[in-house]
């Protein structure tokens, strides 16, 4: 694929790779930062309506999803630790668990969105059209922010699947596991963003 692969490999620089990953995560935070600013502005503008609309969300499912994502972060770390200690099997198991939990999150998310849609709460939906402007904005932000987050979960799953292949082929091993660590960092970011989304939409009444 590249003309100077021998060059790339003969100075492996894990610290540098991690630095690049952190910088990338920083840009992801700012990407969501734009949305958080919007949330803040509109929350100040439509405080009452935001209170009202937030009650429509399903707190039980939101909490369940939070627990699922937090657990997936744990299994992610365990997968990295396992490979660093030389246990490929265990590492694969934990990585598969992480992917499984991510998919569970997506399924629950789909049920939540589905329920909203069936009640006519979606952009352009008849129920939403009867609500006040502030509530429309709340649900607009809800769909956009959790939607973008869900997209990140899916990207995360794809990344983790690649990591799985690398693990199985031995490209990620006890000595060289920086890619798994970088993938893990991305996964933690996905988790972290949800940790902020959850209170903003589900808990603040």
């Amino acid at each position, binding site marked *: *694929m590249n003309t100077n692969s021998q060059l*790339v490999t003969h100075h492996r620089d894990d610290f540098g790779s991690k630095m690049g990953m952190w910088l990338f995560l920083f840009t992801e935070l700012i990407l969501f930062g734009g949305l958080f600013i919007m949330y803040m502005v509109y929350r100040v503008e439509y405080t009452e309506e935001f209170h009202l609309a937030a009650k429509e969300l399903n707190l039980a499912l939101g909490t369940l999803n939070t627990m699922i994502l937090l657990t997936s972060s744990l299994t992610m770390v365990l997968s990295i630790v396992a490979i660093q200690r030389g246990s490929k099997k265990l590492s694969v198991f934990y990585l598969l668990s992480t992917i499984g939990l991510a998919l569970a999150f997506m399924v629950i998310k789909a049920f939540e969105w589905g329920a909203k849609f069936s009640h006519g709460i979606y952009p352009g939906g008849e129920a939403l059209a009867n609500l006040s402007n502030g509530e429309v904005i709340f649900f607009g932000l809800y769909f*956009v922010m959790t939607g973008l987050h869900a997209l990140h979960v899916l990207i995360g799953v794809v990344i983790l699947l690649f990591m799985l292949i690398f693990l199985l082929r031995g490209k990620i091993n006890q000595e060289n596991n920086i890619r798994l660590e970088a993938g893990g960092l991305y996964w933690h970011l996905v988790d972290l963003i949800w940790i902020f989304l959850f209170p903003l939409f589900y808990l603040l009444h």
Partner: protein
Amino acid sequence: MSNSVATSVKSFYEYQGKHKGILGWILSTDHKRIGLLYLWSMIGFFLVGVGLGVLMRLEMLTMGPTIMQPQTYNAIFTLHGIIMIFLFIIPGLPAAFGNFFLPIMIGAEDVQFPRLNLLSWWLYITGGIFAIVSLFLSGGPIDTGWTFYVPYSIRTSTQVILPLLAAFILGFSSILTGINFITTVHRMRAKGMTFFKLPLFVWALYATGWIQIIGTPVIGITILLVIVERLFGVGLFDPALGGDPILFQHLFWIYSHPAVYIMILPAMGVVSEIIPTFARKHIFGYKAIAFSSLAIAFIGTLVWGHHMFTSGMSDTARWVYSLLTYIVALPSAVKVFNWVATMYKGSIRMSAPFAFVMAFIVLFSIGGLTGLILGSVATNIHVHDTYFVVAHFHFVMFGGTGFIFFGALHYWFPKMFGKMYNEKIALTAVGILTIGFLMLYFTMFILGYEGMPRRYYDYLPQFQNLHIFATVGSWVLVTGLLLMFGNLFVALKKGAPAPANPWGSMTLEWQTSSPPPFENFNYHPEIKYGPYDYEHYDEAVKDEYK
């Protein structure tokens, strides 16, 4: 100026990688090849942008319709903006010259993430293709202006989604380049290359990298939101549903003002390379220039509100933004004074790159100072959205970054292509370019001050003469461009072989053959002196590279 080394070492052009022919270029992870890929694609887009600009000026030659209809005019100024900003001047110096020279200037073999670097170029090309394809899709070419202001960008029937997607992808490419450069500067410096021995172009690229990382994601999300808005009508920017269009403007300028510094900082870095080389003197105030790059990068992220003085904003916000705008002018002025001070008692050799720098200092200073007129609230109200603004940013962007892009091209041409160009013709081209530039854009200051609004298809009779003068200026400018590119093209074909160090410079990119070998150096560079310590020239530079 020995040439023997250059011929004994295989250059990166001759290096045979895995792939041959065109694939050896578009699949190469060699930073030098990627830099050249960027350079060629950018010059291509630039010429398209120039063509569109010439058409606009031709339309303004007479009142009423001259060669096109109003809707075409709207599309053309939008495209001119999108192409020049997103495809030429933002990637501009970092992607072309930064890619080629950053690793060499710090004594490295490549950037930290070579494959990511190639991905950046592919994203760039994808974005460019999207932008062009969008012209032929349903709805026709986008007509919102390059700023995509809502609610018009949500309601217009032209093709908006694809150009927005193009801008998003280009932003992603820019972010990846920024990440790559920052990590490279931190991790890949040669032995002895401390931060304060870095060439100032590297400092500028480093600061630029940070703006790319901090600013670009904000426009990313803003663009995504406009796309979502068009597809689903969520209402976040739609006043009819409770959304706030002003919020779009804020988010847009949070990126797009710092983007101005993404454009100008690398140019300032190039100026800081060219002046010491041709004055053969240590740069005056090395640290002041290095830190002023960082200062511009960080204060520059806080001044976006000055684009919105007339959009509806509290008085407090207005004077705060105005004050910050004045503050960000200080580090820029620090640089200008340092450059001029470097020349004092230097032994100046007049050459094409240096001539570009001279033109730059004058044009950029005019552009910068008129920026302050726009940045103060009272005068802004009068000249907002007039040709005054158009003139201002063309002085900064074209007279500033554009001229230095050409200056950099002339400065590094021997190194990149291993050929020398005709200096006299190049100098003549600089002269013609400058005259054409002033005729075209200085006239716009007057037009704007007298009340000619920007983006208008037609104008009142009293503006007729000035518009004709400006249009003639655009022809002179194009003549200069053709002469300059023609000269370089001839040099590419028939130029004399370039020595390793034609300008007698001290920075590392000249301490290797022209063009450089695949691994950049045939020795391991060790750095003992600063990049501009010309008093140590004889000790620092090996004989074969003098």
